[in-house]
Protein backbone atom coordinates (compact mmCIF):
# COMPACT_ATOMS: atom_id res chain seq x y z
CA UNK A 1 0.00 0.00 0.00
CA UNK A 2 1.56 3.26 -1.16
CA UNK A 3 -0.68 5.25 1.20
CA UNK A 4 0.97 3.80 4.28
CA UNK A 5 4.57 3.84 3.07
CA UNK A 6 6.37 5.94 5.73
CA UNK A 7 9.19 6.84 3.35
CA UNK A 8 6.93 8.09 0.60
CA UNK A 9 6.53 11.52 2.26
CA UNK A 10 10.25 12.19 1.80
CA UNK A 11 10.30 11.57 -1.92
CA UNK A 12 11.53 14.45 -3.94
CA UNK A 13 10.37 15.32 -7.39
CA UNK A 14 11.26 18.03 -9.81
CA UNK A 15 8.44 20.45 -10.37
CA UNK A 16 10.36 22.69 -12.77
CA UNK A 17 13.43 21.37 -14.58
CA UNK A 18 16.05 24.09 -14.53
CA UNK A 19 19.51 23.08 -15.72
CA UNK A 20 21.43 26.36 -15.62
CA UNK A 21 25.01 26.27 -16.90
CA UNK A 22 25.50 22.63 -16.05
CA UNK A 23 24.09 23.09 -12.55
CA UNK A 24 20.84 21.35 -11.86
CA UNK A 25 18.82 24.20 -10.33
CA UNK A 26 15.53 22.38 -10.70
CA UNK A 27 12.76 23.47 -8.39
CA UNK A 28 11.79 20.47 -6.30
CA UNK A 29 8.95 20.06 -3.82
CA UNK A 30 11.53 20.67 -1.12
CA UNK A 31 12.53 23.92 -2.87
CA UNK A 32 8.91 25.02 -2.96
CA UNK A 33 8.72 24.77 0.80
CA UNK A 34 12.01 26.63 1.19
CA UNK A 35 10.36 29.45 -0.75
CA UNK A 36 7.25 29.06 1.40
CA UNK A 37 9.31 29.24 4.60
CA UNK A 38 11.12 32.35 3.36
CA UNK A 39 7.87 34.03 2.38
CA UNK A 40 6.20 32.89 5.60
CA UNK A 41 8.91 34.26 7.88
CA UNK A 42 9.12 37.49 5.89
CA UNK A 43 5.35 37.96 5.92
CA UNK A 44 5.20 37.19 9.64
CA UNK A 45 7.90 39.67 10.61
CA UNK A 46 6.96 42.38 8.10
CA UNK A 47 3.21 42.27 8.79
CA UNK A 48 3.82 42.05 12.52
CA UNK A 49 5.96 45.17 12.44
CA UNK A 50 3.92 47.15 9.90
CA UNK A 51 1.70 48.99 12.36
CA UNK A 52 4.62 50.00 14.59
CA UNK A 53 2.17 50.25 17.46
CA UNK A 54 3.39 51.43 20.83
CA UNK A 55 1.00 48.96 22.42
CA UNK A 56 1.45 45.86 20.25
CA UNK A 57 -1.40 43.77 18.84
CA UNK A 58 -1.32 39.99 18.73
CA UNK A 59 0.80 39.59 15.62
CA UNK A 60 3.19 42.36 16.65
CA UNK A 61 3.49 40.78 20.10
CA UNK A 62 4.44 37.48 18.51
CA UNK A 63 7.03 39.16 16.33
CA UNK A 64 8.47 41.05 19.29
CA UNK A 65 8.51 37.93 21.43
CA UNK A 66 10.38 36.07 18.67
CA UNK A 67 12.80 38.98 18.33
CA UNK A 68 13.46 39.22 22.07
CA UNK A 69 13.64 35.45 22.44
CA UNK A 70 16.42 35.16 19.87
CA UNK A 71 18.11 38.38 21.00
CA UNK A 72 18.24 37.14 24.61
CA UNK A 73 19.54 33.79 23.40
CA UNK A 74 22.35 35.43 21.45
CA UNK A 75 23.22 37.84 24.27
CA UNK A 76 23.28 35.19 26.97
CA UNK A 77 25.36 32.69 24.96
CA UNK A 78 27.63 34.88 22.86
CA UNK A 79 27.58 38.20 24.72
CA UNK A 80 26.81 41.63 23.29
CA UNK A 81 29.55 41.19 20.67
CA UNK A 82 27.55 38.23 19.42
CA UNK A 83 24.71 40.58 18.48
CA UNK A 84 26.40 41.19 15.12
CA UNK A 85 25.32 37.64 14.27
CA UNK A 86 21.81 38.24 15.53
CA UNK A 87 20.25 38.56 12.04
CA UNK A 88 21.83 35.25 11.05
CA UNK A 89 20.70 33.41 14.18
CA UNK A 90 17.23 34.93 13.87
CA UNK A 91 17.00 33.91 10.21
CA UNK A 92 18.20 30.40 11.00
CA UNK A 93 15.80 29.99 13.92
CA UNK A 94 12.76 31.29 12.06
CA UNK A 95 13.63 29.46 8.83
CA UNK A 96 13.98 26.12 10.62
CA UNK A 97 10.99 26.78 12.87
CA UNK A 98 8.74 27.59 9.93
CA UNK A 99 10.07 24.64 7.95
CA UNK A 100 9.43 22.25 10.84
CA UNK A 101 6.01 23.70 11.65
CA UNK A 102 4.88 23.70 8.02
CA UNK A 103 6.02 20.10 7.84
CA UNK A 104 3.39 19.23 10.43
CA UNK A 105 0.64 19.90 7.88
CA UNK A 106 -0.39 16.79 5.97
CA UNK A 107 0.99 16.67 2.40
CA UNK A 108 3.47 19.45 3.15
CA UNK A 109 7.10 18.68 2.51
CA UNK A 110 9.48 18.93 5.46
CA UNK A 111 12.74 20.05 3.88
CA UNK A 112 14.55 19.90 7.25
CA UNK A 113 14.24 16.12 6.88
CA UNK A 114 16.80 16.39 4.10
CA UNK A 115 20.31 15.79 5.41
CA UNK A 116 21.89 17.88 2.67
CA UNK A 117 19.83 20.91 3.75
CA UNK A 118 20.52 20.63 7.48
CA UNK A 119 24.15 19.80 6.90
CA UNK A 120 24.52 22.81 4.61
CA UNK A 121 23.07 25.06 7.31
CA UNK A 122 25.42 23.47 9.87
CA UNK A 123 28.40 23.99 7.56
CA UNK A 124 27.38 27.62 7.12
CA UNK A 125 27.54 28.07 10.88
CA UNK A 126 30.85 26.25 11.30
CA UNK A 127 32.50 28.07 8.37
CA UNK A 128 31.36 31.31 9.92
CA UNK A 129 32.82 30.27 13.28
CA UNK A 130 36.19 29.39 11.70
CA UNK A 131 36.20 32.38 9.36
CA UNK A 132 35.25 34.93 11.98
CA UNK A 133 37.53 33.37 14.60
CA UNK A 134 40.57 33.67 12.34
CA UNK A 135 39.51 37.10 11.02
CA UNK A 136 39.07 38.43 14.56
CA UNK A 137 41.93 36.75 16.42
CA UNK A 138 44.28 35.64 13.66
CA UNK A 139 45.90 32.24 14.05
CA UNK A 140 45.94 32.73 17.81
CA UNK A 141 42.35 31.63 17.56
CA UNK A 142 43.63 28.07 17.03
CA UNK A 143 44.66 28.13 20.69
CA UNK A 144 41.00 27.31 21.23
CA UNK A 145 42.06 23.73 20.68
CA UNK A 146 44.84 23.80 23.27
CA UNK A 147 43.37 23.61 26.72
CA UNK A 148 45.28 25.61 29.32
CA UNK A 149 46.54 23.84 32.43
CA UNK A 150 46.95 20.46 30.77
CA UNK A 151 50.20 18.57 31.48
CA UNK A 152 52.57 18.89 28.49
CA UNK A 153 52.63 15.16 27.94
CA UNK A 154 48.88 15.16 27.43
CA UNK A 155 48.72 18.29 25.25
CA UNK A 156 48.89 16.49 21.88
CA UNK A 157 46.26 13.98 22.92
CA UNK A 158 43.88 16.56 24.42
CA UNK A 159 44.34 18.86 21.43
CA UNK A 160 43.58 16.00 19.10
CA UNK A 161 40.41 15.28 21.03
CA UNK A 162 39.45 18.97 20.95
CA UNK A 163 40.02 19.16 17.19
CA UNK A 164 38.03 16.02 16.71
CA UNK A 165 35.16 17.29 18.82
CA UNK A 166 35.18 20.52 16.82
CA UNK A 167 35.00 18.61 13.55
CA UNK A 168 32.05 16.59 14.78
CA UNK A 169 30.11 19.78 15.53
CA UNK A 170 28.72 20.44 12.05
CA UNK A 171 27.95 16.74 11.72
CA UNK A 172 26.04 16.57 14.99
CA UNK A 173 24.39 19.93 14.35
CA UNK A 174 23.13 18.88 10.94
CA UNK A 175 22.35 15.27 11.75
CA UNK A 176 20.44 16.14 14.94
CA UNK A 177 17.90 18.28 13.11
CA UNK A 178 17.65 15.96 10.14
CA UNK A 179 17.28 12.81 12.24
CA UNK A 180 14.71 14.31 14.58
CA UNK A 181 12.48 15.48 11.76
CA UNK A 182 12.93 12.30 9.74
CA UNK A 183 12.32 9.95 12.65
CA UNK A 184 9.38 11.96 13.94
CA UNK A 185 7.63 12.00 10.59
CA UNK A 186 8.32 8.32 10.03
CA UNK A 187 6.93 7.44 13.46
CA UNK A 188 3.84 9.54 12.82
CA UNK A 189 3.30 7.92 9.47
CA UNK A 190 3.88 4.40 10.80
CA UNK A 191 1.33 4.79 13.59
CA UNK A 192 -1.15 6.54 11.31
CA UNK A 193 -0.58 3.68 8.84
CA UNK A 194 -1.53 1.17 11.54
CA UNK A 195 -4.96 2.78 11.73
CA UNK A 196 -5.45 2.32 8.00
CA UNK A 197 -4.14 -1.24 8.09
CA UNK A 198 -6.37 -2.18 11.04
CA UNK A 199 -9.46 -0.65 9.46
CA UNK A 200 -8.64 -2.41 6.21
CA UNK A 201 -8.11 -5.80 7.91
CA UNK A 202 -11.84 -6.34 8.06
CA UNK A 203 -11.92 -8.47 11.25
CA UNK A 204 -14.37 -7.42 13.98
CA UNK A 205 -11.65 -6.79 16.51
CA UNK A 206 -9.60 -4.57 14.27
CA UNK A 207 -12.02 -1.62 14.46
CA UNK A 208 -11.84 -1.00 18.25
CA UNK A 209 -8.15 -1.84 18.21
CA UNK A 210 -7.55 0.97 15.67
CA UNK A 211 -8.21 3.46 18.49
CA UNK A 212 -4.84 2.66 20.05
CA UNK A 213 -2.68 3.84 17.11
CA UNK A 214 -5.08 6.78 16.72
CA UNK A 215 -4.41 7.88 20.30
CA UNK A 216 -0.70 7.36 19.77
CA UNK A 217 -0.80 9.40 16.56
CA UNK A 218 -2.52 12.26 18.41
CA UNK A 219 0.07 12.13 21.19
CA UNK A 220 2.90 11.94 18.65
CA UNK A 221 1.51 14.92 16.75
CA UNK A 222 1.67 17.00 19.94
CA UNK A 223 5.18 15.69 20.59
CA UNK A 224 6.23 16.51 17.02
CA UNK A 225 5.06 20.10 17.43
CA UNK A 226 7.24 20.28 20.53
CA UNK A 227 10.16 18.68 18.68
CA UNK A 228 9.68 21.10 15.76
CA UNK A 229 10.12 24.05 18.08
CA UNK A 230 12.78 22.42 20.19
CA UNK A 231 14.99 21.46 17.24
CA UNK A 232 14.82 24.99 15.84
CA UNK A 233 15.75 26.28 19.29
CA UNK A 234 18.56 23.74 19.73
CA UNK A 235 19.99 24.62 16.32
CA UNK A 236 19.89 28.32 17.11
CA UNK A 237 21.36 28.05 20.60
CA UNK A 238 24.16 25.73 19.45
CA UNK A 239 24.89 28.26 16.72
CA UNK A 240 25.20 30.91 19.43
CA UNK A 241 27.46 28.72 21.56
CA UNK A 242 29.73 27.91 18.60
CA UNK A 243 29.84 31.56 17.59
CA UNK A 244 30.84 32.37 21.15
CA UNK A 245 33.95 30.25 20.55
CA UNK A 246 34.77 32.41 17.56
CA UNK A 247 34.25 35.65 19.50
CA UNK A 248 35.76 34.60 22.83
CA UNK A 249 38.18 31.74 22.17
CA UNK A 250 39.30 31.54 25.82
CA UNK A 251 37.73 28.61 27.61
Amino acid at each position, binding site marked *: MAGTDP*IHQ*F*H*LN*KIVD*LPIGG*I*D*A*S*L*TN*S*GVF*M*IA*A*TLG*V*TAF*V*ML*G*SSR*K*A*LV*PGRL*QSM*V*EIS*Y*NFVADMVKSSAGTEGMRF*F*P*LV*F*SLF*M*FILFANMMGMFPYFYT*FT*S*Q*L*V*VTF*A*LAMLVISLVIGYGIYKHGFKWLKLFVLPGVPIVLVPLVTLIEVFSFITRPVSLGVRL*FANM*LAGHIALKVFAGFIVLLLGAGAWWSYPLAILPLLLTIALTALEFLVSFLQAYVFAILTCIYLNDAIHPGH
Partner: protein
Amino acid sequence: MAGDIAEKIAVKAGEGELAEEVGHYGDGAHDAAFPPFDPEYFVPQLVWLVLTFGLLYLLMSRLALPRVAGIIENRRERIAGDVAKAAELNGQAEAAQAEYEQALTDARSKAHAIANETRDKMKAEADELRADSDAKLEEDLAAAEARIAATKEKAMANVRDVAAEAAVTIVHQLTGETSEAETVADAVEKAMAAGGGR
Protein backbone atom coordinates in the same frame (compact mmCIF):
# COMPACT_ATOMS: atom_id res chain seq x y z
CA MET B 1 18.43 -1.42 1.55
CA ALA B 2 18.63 -2.99 -1.85
CA GLY B 3 18.06 0.24 -3.74
CA ASP B 4 20.73 2.03 -1.77
CA ILE B 5 23.29 -0.65 -2.44
CA ALA B 6 22.27 -0.71 -6.07
CA GLU B 7 22.85 3.03 -6.27
CA LYS B 8 26.31 2.71 -4.77
CA ILE B 9 27.24 -0.01 -7.14
CA ALA B 10 25.93 2.07 -10.01
CA VAL B 11 28.01 5.05 -8.96
CA LYS B 12 31.12 2.93 -8.59
CA ALA B 13 30.63 1.25 -11.90
CA GLY B 14 29.95 4.56 -13.62
CA GLU B 15 28.09 2.66 -16.28
CA GLY B 16 24.48 3.40 -17.10
CA GLU B 17 24.05 -0.10 -18.38
CA LEU B 18 25.10 -1.74 -15.14
CA ALA B 19 23.05 0.72 -13.10
CA GLU B 20 19.97 -0.16 -15.09
CA GLU B 21 20.65 -3.83 -14.72
CA VAL B 22 21.22 -3.68 -10.95
CA GLY B 23 18.40 -1.18 -10.53
CA HIS B 24 15.96 -3.94 -11.24
CA TYR B 25 16.61 -5.26 -7.77
CA GLY B 26 14.88 -2.13 -6.43
CA ASP B 27 11.40 -1.05 -7.35
CA GLY B 28 12.42 1.17 -10.22
CA ALA B 29 14.55 4.32 -10.58
CA HIS B 30 12.34 6.53 -8.40
CA ASP B 31 12.52 4.30 -5.35
CA ALA B 32 16.17 3.50 -5.90
CA ALA B 33 17.55 5.49 -2.97
CA PHE B 34 16.31 6.48 0.45
CA PRO B 35 15.22 10.04 -0.47
CA PRO B 36 17.36 11.98 2.03
CA PHE B 37 20.46 10.25 0.69
CA ASP B 38 19.59 10.54 -2.98
CA PRO B 39 22.45 12.50 -4.56
CA GLU B 40 20.33 13.39 -7.55
CA TYR B 41 18.55 16.01 -5.47
CA PHE B 42 21.51 17.36 -3.55
CA VAL B 43 22.39 20.13 -5.97
CA PRO B 44 18.87 21.40 -6.68
CA GLN B 45 18.13 21.59 -2.96
CA LEU B 46 21.41 23.34 -2.21
CA VAL B 47 20.78 25.86 -4.97
CA TRP B 48 17.34 26.69 -3.66
CA LEU B 49 18.55 26.68 -0.07
CA VAL B 50 21.19 29.26 -0.93
CA LEU B 51 18.66 31.34 -2.85
CA THR B 52 15.88 31.24 -0.28
CA PHE B 53 17.97 31.44 2.87
CA GLY B 54 20.18 34.11 1.33
CA LEU B 55 17.09 36.14 0.46
CA LEU B 56 15.64 35.58 3.93
CA TYR B 57 18.89 36.69 5.57
CA LEU B 58 18.99 39.84 3.45
CA LEU B 59 15.35 40.67 4.13
CA MET B 60 15.75 40.05 7.84
CA SER B 61 19.03 41.91 8.34
CA ARG B 62 18.27 44.87 6.05
CA LEU B 63 14.56 45.35 6.41
CA ALA B 64 12.63 43.38 8.97
CA LEU B 65 14.85 43.27 12.04
CA PRO B 66 15.82 46.97 11.98
CA ARG B 67 12.11 47.73 11.84
CA VAL B 68 11.30 45.51 14.83
CA ALA B 69 14.32 46.90 16.69
CA GLY B 70 13.03 50.40 15.91
CA ILE B 71 9.63 49.60 17.39
CA ILE B 72 11.13 48.14 20.55
CA GLU B 73 13.64 50.97 20.91
CA ASN B 74 10.90 53.51 20.30
CA ARG B 75 8.80 52.00 23.05
CA ARG B 76 11.76 51.86 25.42
CA GLU B 77 12.51 55.52 24.77
CA ARG B 78 8.88 56.46 25.17
CA ILE B 79 8.67 54.65 28.50
CA ALA B 80 11.92 56.21 29.69
CA GLY B 81 10.66 59.62 28.57
CA ASP B 82 7.34 59.15 30.31
CA VAL B 83 9.07 58.00 33.48
CA ALA B 84 11.36 61.05 33.37
CA LYS B 85 8.37 63.32 32.77
CA ALA B 86 6.49 61.70 35.64
CA ALA B 87 9.51 62.22 37.89
CA GLU B 88 9.70 65.86 36.81
CA LEU B 89 6.00 66.41 37.48
CA ASN B 90 6.38 64.69 40.80
CA GLY B 91 9.25 67.05 41.62
CA GLN B 92 7.09 70.00 40.64
CA ALA B 93 4.26 68.77 42.81
CA GLU B 94 6.65 68.34 45.71
CA ALA B 95 8.01 71.86 45.19
CA ALA B 96 4.47 73.24 45.14
CA GLN B 97 3.72 71.34 48.33
CA ALA B 98 6.84 72.76 49.98
CA GLU B 99 5.92 76.24 48.79
CA TYR B 100 2.42 75.89 50.14
CA GLU B 101 3.73 74.66 53.46
CA GLN B 102 6.18 77.57 53.58
CA ALA B 103 3.35 80.03 52.88
CA LEU B 104 1.27 78.39 55.56
CA THR B 105 4.11 78.62 58.07
CA ASP B 106 4.70 82.27 57.14
CA ALA B 107 1.03 83.13 57.51
CA ARG B 108 0.90 81.36 60.81
CA SER B 109 3.93 83.19 62.18
CA LYS B 110 2.59 86.47 60.86
CA ALA B 111 -0.75 85.88 62.56
CA HIS B 112 1.13 85.03 65.71
CA ALA B 113 3.14 88.26 65.45
CA ILE B 114 -0.01 90.32 64.91
CA ALA B 115 -1.67 88.66 67.87
CA ASN B 116 1.37 89.35 70.03
CA GLU B 117 1.54 92.96 68.93
CA THR B 118 -2.13 93.52 69.62
CA ARG B 119 -1.86 91.91 72.99
CA ASP B 120 1.16 94.04 73.88
CA LYS B 121 -0.61 97.17 72.76
CA MET B 122 -3.71 96.36 74.75
CA LYS B 123 -1.58 95.54 77.75
CA ALA B 124 0.28 98.84 77.44
CA GLU B 125 -2.98 100.71 77.21
CA ALA B 126 -4.39 98.90 80.20
CA ASP B 127 -1.20 99.56 82.14
CA GLU B 128 -1.42 103.24 81.32
CA LEU B 129 -5.04 103.42 82.41
CA ARG B 130 -4.28 101.61 85.60
CA ALA B 131 -1.31 103.85 86.30
CA ASP B 132 -3.53 106.89 85.75
CA SER B 133 -6.24 105.66 88.02
CA ASP B 134 -3.67 104.59 90.60
CA ALA B 135 -2.16 108.09 90.65
CA LYS B 136 -5.56 109.67 90.98
CA LEU B 137 -6.51 107.32 93.75
CA GLU B 138 -3.30 108.07 95.59
CA GLU B 139 -3.94 111.76 95.20
CA ASP B 140 -7.43 111.34 96.57
CA LEU B 141 -6.09 109.19 99.35
CA ALA B 142 -3.46 111.78 100.25
CA ALA B 143 -6.11 114.52 100.24
CA ALA B 144 -8.37 112.45 102.40
CA GLU B 145 -5.54 111.67 104.77
CA ALA B 146 -4.68 115.36 105.01
CA ARG B 147 -8.26 116.20 105.73
CA ILE B 148 -8.42 113.50 108.39
CA ALA B 149 -5.21 114.80 109.98
CA ALA B 150 -6.57 118.38 110.00
CA THR B 151 -9.87 117.28 111.48
CA LYS B 152 -8.04 115.23 114.04
CA GLU B 153 -5.83 118.16 114.92
CA LYS B 154 -8.81 120.36 115.32
CA ALA B 155 -10.59 117.75 117.36
CA MET B 156 -7.58 117.32 119.57
CA ALA B 157 -7.41 121.05 120.18
CA ASN B 158 -11.06 121.10 121.15
CA VAL B 159 -10.48 118.16 123.45
CA ARG B 160 -7.68 120.07 125.21
CA ASP B 161 -9.86 123.10 125.72
CA VAL B 162 -12.75 120.97 126.95
CA ALA B 163 -10.41 119.06 129.24
CA ALA B 164 -8.95 122.27 130.60
CA GLU B 165 -12.39 123.69 131.23
CA ALA B 166 -13.52 120.47 132.78
CA ALA B 167 -10.41 120.39 134.94
CA VAL B 168 -11.04 124.00 136.15
CA THR B 169 -14.62 123.17 136.90
CA ILE B 170 -13.68 119.92 138.69
CA VAL B 171 -11.01 121.69 140.75
CA HIS B 172 -13.48 124.49 141.55
CA GLN B 173 -16.09 122.02 142.61
CA LEU B 174 -13.69 119.98 144.76
CA THR B 175 -11.62 122.71 146.32
CA GLY B 176 -13.59 125.81 145.69
CA GLU B 177 -10.49 127.39 144.39
CA THR B 178 -10.29 129.07 141.13
CA SER B 179 -7.35 127.76 139.22
CA GLU B 180 -5.17 129.70 137.00
CA ALA B 181 -6.09 128.99 133.47
CA GLU B 182 -2.45 128.72 132.43
CA THR B 183 -1.58 126.16 135.14
CA VAL B 184 -4.51 123.99 134.20
CA ALA B 185 -3.65 124.13 130.55
CA ASP B 186 -0.08 122.97 131.37
CA ALA B 187 -1.35 120.14 133.52
CA VAL B 188 -3.75 118.98 130.81
CA GLU B 189 -0.94 119.16 128.33
CA LYS B 190 1.26 116.96 130.54
CA ALA B 191 -1.51 114.50 131.27
CA MET B 192 -2.37 114.14 127.58
CA ALA B 193 1.28 113.67 126.76
CA ALA B 194 1.54 110.98 129.44
CA GLY B 195 -1.65 109.37 128.19
CA GLY B 196 -0.16 108.99 124.79
CA GLY B 197 -2.37 111.56 123.09
CA ARG B 198 -5.16 109.05 122.51
